[in-house]
């Protein structure tokens, strides 16, 4: 069949050639100066404007040079012509002169002529035909470079008449011995297709042939051709699928990108979804993510447990190493492949690499950030550990800043919101006002998404109203307005506050917005609204137009709700408005008057005035701009532009039932030694017969096969492939067990899928074990893993998944508004996970934790306090339950504090705001009979001391007390922190000297870990003392209590009755502190402290000695 088509082509090509030659002959005659009339008419129009530049005196000279006999002159002329082309000037005049040199021996000259030819052939089709025979001859040249470049140029000449010639050349080159020529022919396919789409069928034949090619050189180009000519002919891929997967690593980088994106599409049509609930380790998690589109999937999962097709796994496994590519496009391609194809818990494998790309050029960052923004909406957990990589630098370009902000907003949850808001607070002050405005929008979004911080965000935003910059003010008002609309129940306080601030605000837009708010919710602020109206009536004439409009609006609304108090005022304002200079205001006044003041003319309308003016307004939706971008495949141009680019191919949905798998089986692969590849080693015979179930040996056989085509690197590759098989052995074993399960099927189907899953987990776990420098958080979540594995009712999860699942928890927390009763207990269920999200790795699970909300509301409040740029205090009151081993210390006596007394204690909790700080709570009591106002922190020393201030207490009534929390970074020293406690009238210097035990946070270690760590901290790092214990301290329980009340340490469970171990970390630097108390005979005991903070060790030892020895 092929041969038949071939000869037909030959015939056609001959015909075309003849025609070309005839026309060329004709043309040679017509090359004489006199052009045909119509030609002249057309060319004149075109040429006259570039005549001056291009055709100046040089053109004739160039022509002469080209026609001379000297090679160097010709070359020089060509170079100048190329210069003209590069500048975009027209050099088509010289076409006849140039084309004559197409057969020149000088290769550089020839190349330049080619460049010229490709550029102008389309415009000078007939002349271009003159060169065709030269190329045809060159296609037969023994030198592969010449053959290839002839094909390149021939196919680049966009002259429809030579289509048959091109077709013939492509067909011949496709079976050329040189892979380089074959590659060129793959490129030529696309060119011919764009020139003449009618050739599609013939081209597909060539593509089919080239797809079978084993050279890595050809693979990328032919897949590119496939994508352009026949992307719908997925059937062509079946037989080559495994080969492509296996070759992928060795294909050149550009080819990799194309192949990966093609395989993504392929996999989506051939495999079933790995996202079904059966496989997911956490049902809730899964539902939260895929609730919308998993309707149909759900029924089918009930019938059959999911099992990944080995080919699907093969693709995932073979693309993974490419994440390490230096080519950003390749990394992105793999990332999108994982996103669209991998099981949910494996997707996070790409996170690190994507974050790495952020180090690359600005443009790369832009595209990658866009993709991360889309990903982070669905999967916060993936990027949360890398949150800091998205912090904005003032030197970033605006579009990068906005994208980073977008991602940070997407990542925000209850756990990290305080950190994010603190970061935002820096951004609000940015010089880039557009960015500052975007930040305010982002705060608004955080506030709506995380109900816990809504109020604090609102307060922070209210404070921004007194900013000097108009953009900031206008933006905050708009955001506040939106926020209040979404939460219409509890904001009378804020409206009151805004009303108070009203006098200070000068930006018209902001004033107008506040008036609108007061009007809209006038029933909630019945006392203030009329008062504001009164003030406005006074200043009406001096207000700006938009403000005037809102005054009228406010008056109308008040008239309807509270006509008793405001009737006269409204009348007055309406009268003022009636004679305003602005016609808008006059119109509005007239309209309002007709609407609200009933008279005989207004008729029925005024009855509905209330419903018209006070209709409930729908709340605006604050959501990500990247919300719906996931409809486009990641990494595509369409995704980047958020619109469908021409030629975009939709990613199909997973098929409900997988198509026949056997189509991908390759029958027999003949060992084909490629003679054109410089082979050094002897090519090994490939394994031949492969049965269906031996899939992996199949792929190995392919590898061996490929190795034959490798030269000197093959020897080294042996070792690498052997190592690869060892690294992949675990997973292949896993799949092996899958298969055996299938055969025996005596185990429950669920466990079989688990084992598959488990094996891939173990792969990642292995890797982690290699990384001895594991983070504690990882270690912890691994511990969680092992727990759940023990329980055996949950599929094991990797650490990333742990965070993902807990982040989805927080997702569900945002829904709390609706069903707080449901999700509240969940928060309590998983305190360790919540904590691990906070990066506070070292909190022992045993550490007392208060109910969450009260635990961090003070710190959150103080965060938001930082949002203020002025010193206006927030109107919120703070109360916190003291808890923990309360040993409170005096900070300020009421005698020296003029009635203000302050006591502090260490709640022994990690400070949420800044993990390196020690949290302390200060109870302020007013012992005087006067209310105290404006209690806040003043100057502090030493200067290096960092502390986190508590939010100022606006007013403290007599005998009232309030507890505020603050954080101090003691930097692991017991140096006293001095600062001033100020009221409105006076300042008091106070100082806090922490006991060394308070600078610690408990760490939970196993006995083995403890001993290992202790082993590292010997010698200088060990301090010990022997003491005689006081009576009654000998029992373990008492001893424990004594030590732990002395220092904030966690107990290490030991089997030993006489040895007690405690572990902790310093708050600031996280250095390990290990304490061992070993009881000897009688009441003697040895206390050993191991830590590399030697000063702390000795102090801690002293304190412990005291605590245990004393009565």
């Amino acid at each position: 069949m092929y041969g038949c088509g071939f000869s037909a082509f030959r015939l056609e090509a001959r015909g075309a050639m003849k025609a070309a030659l005839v026309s060329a002959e004709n043309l040679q005659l017509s090359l004489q100066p006199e052009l045909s009339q119509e030609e002249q008419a057309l060319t004149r129009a075109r040429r006259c404007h570039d005549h001056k530049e291009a055709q100046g005196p040089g053109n004739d000279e160039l022509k002469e040079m080209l026609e001379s006999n000297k090679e160097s002159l010709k070359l020089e002329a060509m170079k100048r012509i190329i210069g003209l082309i590069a500048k975009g000037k027209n050099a088509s005049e010289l076409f006849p002169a140039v084309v004559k040199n197409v057969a020149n021996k000088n290769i550089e000259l020839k190349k330049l002529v080619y460049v010229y030819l490709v550029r102008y052939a389309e415009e000078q089709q007939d002349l271009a035909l003159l060169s065709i025979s030269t190329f045809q001859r060159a296609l037969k040249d023994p030198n592969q470079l010449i053959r290839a470049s002839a094909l390149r140029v021939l196919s680049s000449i966009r002259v429809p008449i030579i289509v048959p010639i091109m077709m013939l050349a492509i067909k011949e080159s496709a079976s050329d011995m040189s892979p380089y020529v074959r590659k060129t022919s793959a490129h030529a396919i696309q060119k011919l297709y764009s020139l003449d789409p009618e050739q599609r069928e013939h081209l597909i034949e060539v593509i089919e042939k080239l797809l079978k090619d084993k050279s890595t050189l050809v693979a990328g180009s032919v897949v590119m051709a496939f994508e352009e000519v026949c992307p719908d002919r997925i059937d062509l891929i079946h037989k080559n699928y495994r080969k492509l997967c296996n070759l992928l690593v060795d294909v050149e980088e550009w080819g990799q990108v194309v192949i990966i994106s093609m395989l993504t599409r392929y996999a989506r049509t051939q495999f079933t979804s790995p996202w079904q609930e059966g496989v997911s380790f956490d049902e809730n998690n899964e539902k939260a993510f895929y609730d919308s589109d998993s309707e149909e999937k759900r029924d089918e999962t009930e019938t059959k447990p999911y099992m990944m097709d080995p080919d699907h796994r093969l693709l995932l496994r073979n693309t993974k190493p490419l994440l390490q590519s230096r080519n950003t496009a390749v990394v992105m391609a793999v990332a999108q492949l994982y996103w669209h194809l991998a099981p949910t818990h494996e997707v996070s494998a790409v996170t690190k690499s994507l974050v790495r790309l952020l180090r690359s050029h600005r443009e790369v960052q832009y595209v990658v950030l866009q993709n991360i923004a889309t990903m982070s909406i669905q999967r916060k957990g993936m990027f949360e550990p890398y949150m800091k990589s998205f912090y904005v630098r003032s030197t970033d370009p605006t579009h990068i800043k906005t994208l980073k902000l977008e991602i940070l907003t997407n990542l925000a949850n209850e756990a990290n919101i305080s950190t994010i808001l603190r970061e935002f607070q820096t951004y609000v002050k940015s010089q880039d006002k557009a960015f500052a405005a975007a930040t305010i929008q982002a705060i608004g979004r955080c506030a709506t998404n995380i109900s816990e911080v809504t109020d604090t965000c609102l307060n922070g935003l209210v404070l921004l109203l007194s900013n000097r910059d108009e953009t900031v003010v206008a933006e905050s008002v708009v955001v506040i307005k939106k926020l209040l609309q979404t939460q219409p129940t509890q904001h009378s306080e804020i409206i009151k506050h805004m009303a108070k601030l009203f006098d200070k605000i000068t930006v018209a837009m902001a004033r107008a917005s506040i008036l609108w708010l007061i009007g809209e919710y006038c029933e909630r602020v019945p006392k203030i609204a009329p008062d504001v109206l009164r003030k406005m009536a006074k200043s009406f004439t001096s207000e700006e137009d938009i403000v005037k409009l809102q005054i009228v609006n406010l008056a109308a609304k008040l008239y309807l709700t509270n006509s008793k108090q405001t009737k006269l005022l409204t009348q007055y304002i309406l009268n003022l408005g009636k004679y305003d200079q602005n016609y808008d205001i006059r119109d509005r006044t007239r309209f309002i008057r007709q609407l609200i003041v009933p008279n005989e003319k207004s008729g029925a309308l005024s009855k509905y005035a209330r419903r018209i003016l006070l209709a409930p307004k729908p709340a605006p939706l604050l959501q990500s701009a990247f919300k719906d971008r996931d409809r486009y495949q990641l990494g595509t141009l369409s995704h980047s532009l958020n619109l469908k680019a021409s030629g975009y191919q939709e990613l199909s949905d997973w098929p409900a039932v997988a198509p026949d798998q056997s189509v991908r089986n390759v029958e027999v692969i003949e060992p084909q030694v490629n003679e054109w590849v410089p082979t050094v080693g002897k090519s090994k015979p490939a394994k031949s017969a492969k049965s269906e179930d031996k899939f992996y040996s199949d792929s190995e056989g392919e590898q061996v096969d490929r190795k034959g085509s490798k030269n000197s690197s093959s020897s080294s590759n042996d070792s690498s492939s052997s190592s690869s098989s060892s690294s992949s052995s675990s997973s292949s074993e896993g799949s092996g067990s899958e298969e055996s399960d299938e055969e025996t099927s005596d185990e429950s189907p669920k466990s079989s899928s688990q084992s598959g899953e488990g094996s891939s987990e173990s792969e990642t776990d292995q890797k982690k074990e290699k990384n001895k420098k594991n983070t504690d958080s990882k270690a912890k979540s691994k511990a969680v893993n092992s727990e759940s594995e023990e329980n055996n009712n949950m599929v094991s999860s990797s650490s990333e998944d742990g965070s993902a699942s807990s982040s989805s928890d927080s997702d569900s927390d945002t829904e709390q508004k609706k069903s707080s009763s449901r999700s509240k207990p969940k928060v309590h269920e998983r305190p360790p996970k919540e904590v691990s999200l906070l990066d506070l790795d070292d909190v022992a699970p045993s550490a007392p934790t208060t109910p969450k909300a009260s635990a961090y509301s003070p710190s959150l409040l103080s965060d938001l306090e930082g949002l203020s740029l002025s010193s206006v205090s927030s109107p919120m009151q703070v109360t916190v339950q003291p808890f923990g081993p309360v040993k409170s210390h005096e900070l300020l006596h009421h005698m020296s504090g003029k009635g203000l007394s302050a006591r502090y204690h260490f709640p022994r909790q990690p400070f949420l705001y800044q993990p390196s700080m020690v949290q302390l709570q200060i109870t302020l009591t007013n012992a005087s009979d006067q209310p105290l106002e404006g209690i806040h922190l003043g100057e502090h020393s030493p200067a290096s001391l960092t502390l986190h201030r508590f939010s100022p207490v606006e007013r403290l009534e007599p005998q009232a007390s309030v507890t505020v929390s603050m954080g101090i970074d003691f930097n692991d020293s017991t140096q006293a922190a001095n600062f001033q406690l100020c009221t409105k009238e006076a300042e008091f210097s106070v100082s806090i000297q922490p006991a060394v035990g308070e600078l610690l946070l408990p760490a939970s270690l196993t006995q083995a870990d403890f001993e290992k760590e202790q082993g590292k901290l010997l010698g200088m790092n060990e301090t010990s003392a022997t003491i005689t214990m006081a009576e009654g301290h000998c029992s373990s329980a008492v001893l424990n209590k004594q030590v732990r009340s002395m220092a904030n340490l966690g107990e290490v469970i030991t089997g030993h009755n006489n040895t007690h171990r405690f572990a902790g970390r310093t708050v600031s630097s996280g250095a390990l502190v290990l304490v061992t108390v070993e009881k000897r005979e009688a009441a003697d005991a040895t206390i050993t402290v191991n830590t590399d903070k030697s000063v702390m060790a000795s102090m801690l030892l002293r304190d412990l000695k005291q605590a245990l020895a004393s009565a």
Partner: protein
Amino acid sequence: MYCSCCFSLPNSSGFSVATMNGQLKKCHIAITSFIDSCSPFLIPSSLSPSLCDSSHNLDSLPIVAVEMIHSLFLINHSGDIFLEKHWKSVIGRSVCDYFFEAKEKAAEPEDVPPVLQTPHHYLISIYRDRLFFLSVIQTEAPPLFVIEFLHRVVETFQDYFGECSETVIKDNVVTVYELLEEMLDNGFPLATESNILKEMIRPPTILRTMVNTLTGTSNFEERLPSGQLSTIPWRRSGVKYTNNEAYFDVIEEIDAIVDKSGTTVCAEIQGVIEACVKLTGMPDLTLSFMNPRLLDDVSFHPCVRFKRWEAERVLSFIPPDGNFTLMSYHVNAQNLVAIPVYVKQNISFFESGSGGRLDLTAGPKQTMGKTVEGLVITVHMPKAVLSASLTATQGSYTYDPATKVLVWDIGRLNPQKLPNLRGSLSLQAGAPKPEDNPSINIALKIQQLAISGLKVNRLDMYGEKYKPFKGVKYVTKAGKFQVRT
């Protein structure tokens, strides 16, 4: 038989009169592509109506899928197109107008969005070395693919000409054209590996240019470079050196944000290993580290055998000839990052709005006993700052009133005598007190130190007999190091 428009087309417009039977449709495709490719003013006015009247339905023709990168325009800082290259039919310069529009809107050239959309094309651009590289594409293509390629083009130019600037490109326009021709075929990358390119097109040197003009020999290789065919395309065969050397530079950069109080908001270390390998034959190298666990995330030159790294944490590779980036890495985020310097800053503006004061002191923090060199502090001042009159105890400062950038070049940091820069700032008359404080960027260099503590253990060579000369150098630099105020 023939359609009317084919007849009405004059010869020179690019359509053949010698139409054969059955060529009718092809002719029309050519017309569509012609229209696509020409900017409006290039189409003779006589042509358009005849197309519209055409009895054939042009809409029904299939959309012709085209290649990845269609055209490339090089645009200089002031917005002149000084080079264009088309890999297919010509696209008129007017397409750049959409880009210029976006450029107008952006405050800085860096702010121009890299991906733009026009009615018929998509524009993807990069900005490097004060030049815009603007590529035109017509259909869906991964934007990163194009961006990465454009950066590769710039790197190739730098490799060939030492720098990538307008003058250099204009001077070497022929070589540039030859390179672009080799790098892309029909819009799809063909040869981007600099070793292959250099074998095909020799980089220009003064000597060679002279010899070429005298003898008429060319810059072109007549044979296909061996690299193009082998599975190690990055290395050419038959390399010979009298002195066999292999040098590796471990360069680490600290990216950090430090807040007002000196607390580190975030800090991380990124490193690259730049290699210069001049070895005869086909050496197979193995580089191992003392502490490979430090490395958290890595990316490699294609020559590195990834599986070997996965299994043994050693770099095993057949190196390209000459300079290349062997690997880049990210240091485990959990390791604490040593911040080598601190900057004590006090920048304040007077309430009255007439001026302000600036006081900067730099000092060493955690330098591991090494000297900090090349210390440069850059302050981006608020817009209202007109001028600065300052005195520096060390180094020199410049203030550019146009860009509002204060650069203080300190040089070597002397721990005994801390450099200080202080003085007054004057504000624009009538401008209110700036609310925002400027941010400070720091550049520095520490020789003989990899701040992460990464150490190369040993370098072994297999496959060749001779004994090469080996060397490893460590440098630490400040990357994106910013102090917030």
